[in-house]
């Protein structure tokens, strides 16, 4: 009934107070725009990182380790007793995954899974006077190419090189650069067991994940077993899944069935994923702070309007406007500032994102990238819009409530 009238009055109030209105509009707009820009940057980076992890590392890894020490006989006999055993530690499997072939065979039966066995260990890479410590991963190339994107990541050489060369090794780009190693160079690999192998570099890869590129090397499983002096041993089974979201439940299932420690990609990258949570908290609090400042702007404008318009409120109420009608007028003002500010903020945020997308520079952190990876999502617009509108409505609500409680008789008496 009074909706268009209330709106009309609200609009006039704001348009007659242009500078203040514009200031508070800008407050909301900047808050919304920064949220969109920051969210797109952060999420872009996070998603890019997760994608790289999902792309280049296995989704589930079975390790030859146990999470908990085996249950001791005394605990079985006295299940309710308080027992403390000292020096108990999870069993160390010198022989790698027992029954690895059976595990692999069982997993290969499951739909949507690709499975590759590996033997991972440490070694010293010696090239000229330079020694570098590296992870040596023994693989079966035909299975590996199904599970990781090592083959795609190769910037020099071929995965088949491992078969054709007598002792072939593939190095991460960082490993090669640090020691100044090129393709076809001969390197010496020394294992903790004391085995020394002369190997030929048949490939160099770049995954984009700094840790991987700087430390990982690949060779045939057989060579790795010789190097580590662990014939026929497999200590990792790596699994790639069609549906990455199923990694955690699958890992739990495998661990429950075989007992070995089984990690999903989320668990393996939990340190980084934990940082993302903190990043998001920082982002939300920064943007929250901007919006709170914007709130003060709106609060200020509407409080001023209420103060200046006391006489108008008096006459409107004596005329027969209800408390709610008056309150609505000022809440509308907040909503107007809020919604126009949000739309401006959307436009500004969109522009900022486009601008950031046009920047190009090299950076190296967790990942190697050129320019900012941006994630554009309608969700950011919805969230920022909702936050902006809520904030401005709330900021308007307080002065509006005050206005609606003014008694007309006090106003006309005071003025007359």
């Amino acid at each position, binding site marked *: 009934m009074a909706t*268009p009238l209330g709106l009309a009055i609200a609009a006039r109030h704001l*348009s007659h107070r242009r500078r203040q209105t514009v200031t508070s509009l800008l407050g909301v707009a900047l808050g919304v725009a920064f949220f969109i820009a920051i969210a797109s940057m952060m999420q872009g980076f996070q998603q890019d990182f997760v994608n790289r992890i999902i792309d280049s590392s296995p989704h589930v890894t079975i390790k030859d380790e146990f999470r908990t020490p085996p249950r001791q006989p005394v605990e079985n006999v006295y299940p309710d007793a308080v027992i403390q055993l000292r020096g108990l530690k999870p069993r160390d499997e010198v022989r790698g995954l027992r029954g690895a072939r059976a595990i692999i065979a069982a997993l290969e039966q499951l739909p949507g899974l690709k499975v590759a066995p590996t033997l991972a260990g440490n070694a010293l890479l010696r090239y000229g006077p330079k020694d570098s410590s590296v992870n040596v991963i023994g693989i079966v190339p035909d299975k590996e190419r199904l599970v990781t994107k090592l083959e795609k990541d190769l910037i020099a050489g071929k995965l088949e090189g491992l078969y054709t060369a007598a002792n072939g090794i593939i190095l991460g780009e960082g490993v090669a650069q640090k020691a100044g190693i090129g393709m076809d160079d001969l390197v010496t690999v020394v294992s903790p067991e004391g085995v020394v192998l002369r190997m030929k570099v048949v490939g160099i890869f770049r995954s984009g994940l700094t840790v991987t590129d700087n430390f990982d090397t690949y060779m045939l499983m057989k060579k790795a077993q010789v190097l580590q002096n662990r014939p026929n041993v497999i200590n990792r089974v790596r699994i790639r899944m069609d549906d990455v979201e199923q990694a955690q439940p699958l890992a739990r299932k495998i661990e429950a069935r075989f007992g070995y420690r089984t990690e999903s990609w989320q668990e393996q990258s939990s340190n980084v994923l934990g940082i993302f949570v903190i990043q998001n908290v920082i982002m939300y609090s920064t943007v929250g702070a901007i919006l709170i400042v914007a709130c003060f702007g709106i609060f200020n404008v509407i409080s001023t309007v209420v103060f200046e318009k006391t006489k108008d409120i008096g006459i409107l109420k004596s005329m027969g406007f*209800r*408390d709610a009608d008056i309150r609505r007028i000022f809440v509308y003002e907040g909503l107007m500032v809020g919604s126009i500010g949000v739309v401006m903020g959307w436009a500004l945020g969109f522009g900022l994102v486009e601008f950031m997308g046009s920047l190009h520079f090299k950076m190296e952190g967790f990942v190697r990238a050129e320019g900012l990876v941006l994630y554009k999502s309608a969700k950011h617009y919805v969230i920022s819009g909702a936050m902006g509108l809520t904030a401005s409505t709330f900021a308007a609500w307080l002065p509006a409530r005050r206005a609606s409680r003014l*008694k007309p008789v006090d106003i*006309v008496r005071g003025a007359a």
Partner: protein
Amino acid sequence: MTPAIPILEARRLTRELPGPVPVTLVRDIDLTVAAGEFVAITGPSGSGKSSLLYLLGLLDTPSSGDVLVDGLPTVGIPDNPLADLRLSRFGFVFQFHFLLPEFSARDNVEIPMRRLGLLGTGEIRDRAEFLLETLGLAEHAHKLPEQMSGGQRQRVAVARALANDPAIILADEPTGNLDTKSAENVFSLFRQLASDQGRAVVVVTHDTELAARADRRIHLVDGRIVP
């Protein structure tokens, strides 16, 4: 309207401002106003003229006693129905015009009608123009209050008070800020509203000359009616 039921009636109306030293604004006022009657309330400053008018206009709540509109008591009516009653039955004119400064004369006159919502947009506009025309303001309809003279503004305020065709017009020193000629104009306007249109008009004024032209004059001293 039968004269048996007065359109506006005050019964033992008392208003005190609470506080460490309570102040009595009006005390034991009995008053009836019939349709078509023009009543002037006079009295020295601080005698409670305006307070009485606000009580009659349901803007203030009496400490005791009651105000009857169309014979029905109003004490105890919640705020919202009370606002609705003011909207449909009362028209107020104050010493200061209280026009909304952002709105043109016509928009100001339209506001009470739009709030009441009984008429369509076109009808509201027509009625606003008609009212302004009767008050000789036809060519000022589009002007903002600040572009008009004091007398013109006060006439716009009268037009606004008449917007919803109220039975009761209450005016608080409507001529207080006007020069003699404008005051004369506005006063004869109230005279007409009562005599020609049959509205109950109650005007608070300290101008005894003008008050003398009312049907009835009520003199207040210290919140009481004195004969």
